[in-house]
């Protein structure tokens, strides 16, 4: 099973080669299938069968399978796909009123364009930064990296964001999670620690004063 990532429109040759241990098999029938469709032109050489594919757009991508039928049936699968975008596993934590920066990268393959989506319920809404210029700013340092800057965060901005990279042959999405916390959230444990410190210091001071009095 093999994954092949295609960035641009290209002509690709997929070949299934028979391993030495199977060379004893005779009268083999070879079929190449894409989904349910059988592919006609198979180039045969001594021990390999290959097909030539012209991939011009999204429609030709998918899984191509070669099957060799003889006494035993053996096969291989090729998955032709667009480059995958990695999102971030851990949520990005930020605070109300603060600014958050969401970053998506595609280091190996350069996309043509980037689009950002916000999830509202079950819908994905595209983020238009010219429409809400004081809230969202989409910028790119290079074509491989995109930044979404969200200012003046509020609870409504909490949720899942998608960065979509458009390649010549299709689109690919990466998932990011944004968590917006109120300032109270870290303040509570902090105040608890503060109380602990004050209590301990007081106890120690009192104990020391008490033991000094005892000495007297």
């Amino acid at each position: 099973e093999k994954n092949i990532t295609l960035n641009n429109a290209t002509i690709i040759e997929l070949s299934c080669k028979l391993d030495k241990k199977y060379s004893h098999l005779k009268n083999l029938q070879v079929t190449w299938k894409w989904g349910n469709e059988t592919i006609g032109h198979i180039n045969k050489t001594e021990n390999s069968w290959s097909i030539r594919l012209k991939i011009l757009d999204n429609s030709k991508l998918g899984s191509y399978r070669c099957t060799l039928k003889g006494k035993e049936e053996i096969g291989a699968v090729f998955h032709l796909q667009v480059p995958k975008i990695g999102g971030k596993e851990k949520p990005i934590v930020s605070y109300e009123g603060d600014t958050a920066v969401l970053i998506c990268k595609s280091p190996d393959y350069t996309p043509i364009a980037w689009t950002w989506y916000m999830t509202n319920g079950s819908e994905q809404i595209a983020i238009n930064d010219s429409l809400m210029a004081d809230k969202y700013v989409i910028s790119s340092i290079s074509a491989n990296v995109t930044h979404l800057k969200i200012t003046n965060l509020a609870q409504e901005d909490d949720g899942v964001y998608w960065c979509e990279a458009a390649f010549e042959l299709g689109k690919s999405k990466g998932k990011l999670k944004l968590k917006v916390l109120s300032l109270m959230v870290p303040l509570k444990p902090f105040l608890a620690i503060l109380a602990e410190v004050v209590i301990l210091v007081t106890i120690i001071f009192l104990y020391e004063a008490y033991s000094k009095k005892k000495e007297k």
Partner: protein
Amino acid sequence: MQAKDSNPPDGGYGWVVVVSAFMVMGLTAAVLKTFGLFFVEIQQHFDELASTTSWITSVTIAIFHLGAPVASSLCVRYTHRAVVITGGLLAFSGMALGFLGLSIAWMYATIGFLQGLGISFSWTPAISIVSHYFSKKRALANAIASAGECAFALTFGPFFQWLISQYGWKGALLIIGGIQLNICVCGVLMRPLASSCLPEASHSGTETPPGNTASRIDKEAKPPITHKTFNWMLVRQPEFVLYAIFGILAAMSFFVPPLFLVPLSYSLGIDESWTASLLSILAMVDFAGRLLCGWYASLHVTKTVHLLAMTITLISTSLMLLPLANNYLSLAVFTGFYGFFFGTTVAVHITVLADVVGMPDFDSALGLFMLIRSSGGFVGPPLAGMIVDVAGDYRAGFYMAGATLVLSAGFLVTLDQLQQRKERGNKTNNKPEKPVLPYPSLHLLKLQ
């Protein structure tokens, strides 16, 4: 409860001070060590370069070293306790203001300057007061206190990561600042010793009258108050100078292995999680080394200077052998050896300073030593980086570190020879003194 410095308790309340110092070490040095976890978060938030962001920690470390002599002189004037409490408040304010995260320059001022100053004001007196409280068991006490850094560093790694994932880097800073407030708690526990209270004896009304008279008698018994201000004359003492040079060379070497261990490991093809385990091994054997060396030194079987020279030699041997490692197991073994002997060295080197300069000058010496040593710390990593670039191999960095340590050991040996010669000189000087004493009394008898 207030024992004299000339007769340190060597136990009793001293152990409370040791525990307190253990915690201060953890809350200062371990926080600094683990701060790298915030690096990427802060860099992305402010949209800055890696080099600009790394200046934050550079400022912290620089202020930490520059602040050490200031902290020492303040210890001498006010008490260790006051300086530690101040340090705790400063460190907390640095973190709490860092929480506001207004700009990268703001971070330099808060996490850099304030935190650095706070750490310096907490760490220096904590180290120093342990030495004041002990004499025979000083090595053990120092070792236990310094082990706090390792113990806390081990737990802070995952703990800080969890904090960042829960509260974001800003919230995490605030909470860590709060945790650092506990430095003040530890500071309150550091009760001053009687003789270092000399200026206080006349001020504080809570002093018991017997205590007052005792310290006044002390005043008369000892000639001019021994060094109640910062003692700059230390730079004239050859022993101190030798030890300071040793410190510079050792510092040049100490920061290099942790820096290059990770890249070396990656270049050998070891993946991230195994490399992280190497760092854990380093921390754990460091901890063990510190405790073991402290216990051994407290047995007083060998002179501390000799012990230090031995540990330095052992570290440099491990470092010279480390480049031979070519897989995870050998690298782990050599890292273990290096970490263990590093721990032994750290445990004993402050005790050696106390033995070299003596307790009255110790506070000033500690501050000066830290300041001078920092130059080695600033020169070491860039120099090692240059050597690695020229050689094209990370192993060159380890060779350089090992060689520098061997050189530093040479200074230790010279120091020891000097001390031994002085001791022999003192012994031969003592003998003629005895007949001199009865002479004037005979004179007097004759006159009468």
